[in-house]
């Protein structure tokens, strides 16, 4: 069992609905994005094209963040999801530096107290209840939803159906079929991290 995601770049319109859904699901404070969509302008006027690349933790099979973590706070579940144990993290930020995709964040405690609109609203208070400051944080493929048999928040909210989530080890799963048929590529494959996120073009 290895959870993974295929992201269809032809379908993504850069609306950032996934970004908002992720923030709503995880209650991340200002400046912390477990997923986001990067815009890229290519070419020169008048031949300019704008493309979008949604990014999130790639839950790599050979994750550099896992290797460099000195405490074992970063660990891998049997289903391939890379997690951070807040109680074990010392805040050395080695994982942040080691992630070739820069998809990890360091959560200063001040952010947890600040809130989006000055002070914490009831939603933020509830969401921040179990969050620790001064630790590394990142996307967990919404493990709390996945464990209940649901898909991650970014997947169910995508208006274009650009994100497809499933078991990469099952050749009959939709995600595996799409990767096979559309020749899905892993981001920065030359870094030898074997990401579980694939881009379809």
């Amino acid at each position: 069992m290895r959870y993974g995601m295929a992201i269809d770049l032809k379908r993504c319109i850069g609306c950032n609905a996934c970004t908002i859904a992720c923030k709503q699901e995880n209650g991340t404070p200002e400046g912390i994005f477990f997923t986001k969509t990067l815009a890229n302008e290519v070419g020169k006027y008048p031949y300019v094209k704008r493309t979008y690349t949604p990014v999130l933790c790639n839950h790599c099979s050979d994750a550099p963040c896992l290797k460099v973590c000195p405490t074992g706070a970063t660990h891998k579940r049997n289903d391939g999801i890379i997690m951070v144990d807040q109680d074990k993290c010392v805040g050395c930020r080695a994982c942040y530096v080691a992630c070739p995709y820069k998809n990890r964040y360091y959560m200063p405690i001040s952010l947890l107290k600040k809130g989006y609109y000055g002070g914490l609203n009831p939603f933020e208070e509830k969401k921040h209840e179990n969050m620790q400051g001064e630790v590394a944080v990142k996307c967990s493929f919404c493990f709390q939803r996945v464990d209940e048999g649901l898909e991650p928040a970014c997947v169910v909210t995508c208006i274009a159906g650009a994100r497809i989530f499933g078991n990469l080890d099952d050749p009959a799963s939709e995600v595996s079929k799409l990767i096979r048929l559309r020749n899905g590529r892993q981001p920065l494959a030359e870094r030898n991290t074997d990401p579980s996120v694939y881009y379809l073009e």
Partner: protein
Amino acid sequence: MKNLDGKPSIVGDELVDGFRFQTEWAWLIAIAFFLGGIGAGLFLVSVFFKFKLAALLGLLIVAFGKGGAHLLYLGHPLRAWRVILKPGSSWISRGMIATVIFTFFGFLWCAEVVPGFGWLVLKEGTFAGGLVTSLAVISALIVGIYDGLVMSSSPSLPFWNTALLPMFGFNEAFLGGVTLTILLIHFGIGGNLSVNLNILELVEVGLLLLNLLLLIVYLMTMFTSNLTSKVSALLLLKGKYAPYFLGGGIFTGAILTLLLIFYFYFTHQVLALAGVALASLLGDFVVRFTFLKVGVYTPLSYR
């Protein structure tokens, strides 16, 4: 990866693709790496000359300077003990273990000069003496090249991901050790130590030239290995960190240091020697700091 002007885009945290800086490892990590390097370097040079007081100073620089800077940097310093749990894969774990071993056996090696520990004399030629010296030296070597190993072990930042970095870091550490040893001896802290200072000064010049050579080779390699490492190298030579790197790292750390060494060689003014130490150590620190700051990640769209 080009932007509309045909130049590589360097971006911050905005939602656009481009080269992004690593922003977390900065001042405190640079201070920890710098103090770890010169402390371990000073200890190693002192073991060679059996200069126990200087060895103790090196040990204190590592234990309190490097250790203190690392602790200050941690988000949860009270959990620092957990850092030793993954020596199988993490260089930070290995470095922490090496630092603990170094502090213990290094202290045993130079304990006789510590007030109250005069009874703890390490007898030369005995098995115990040899074991303590060997463990202290090996762990000091690891502490000396630790920063290079930590930085080069991750594939995320191409500018750091090279075997040249530990070599360069160790040379910087050794150079710092020699510089401090010369300074301590000139200020009379060496007591009746029989050290040929002329040879030590020649070693310092040799190490400085080797340092400069390694730096040139390093930058040449970075310019030709891939676009991301080239962007980092350009940031050092032409970008926002160029004034620090060229002014502090190259001019002060190498050229001014060499000039002051020659001035000292002919005049034997102790003030010039203090200038050598200051310029050399400042250059070492600036190079380490700017190397941390110019680490950039490869953009996703770069293929």
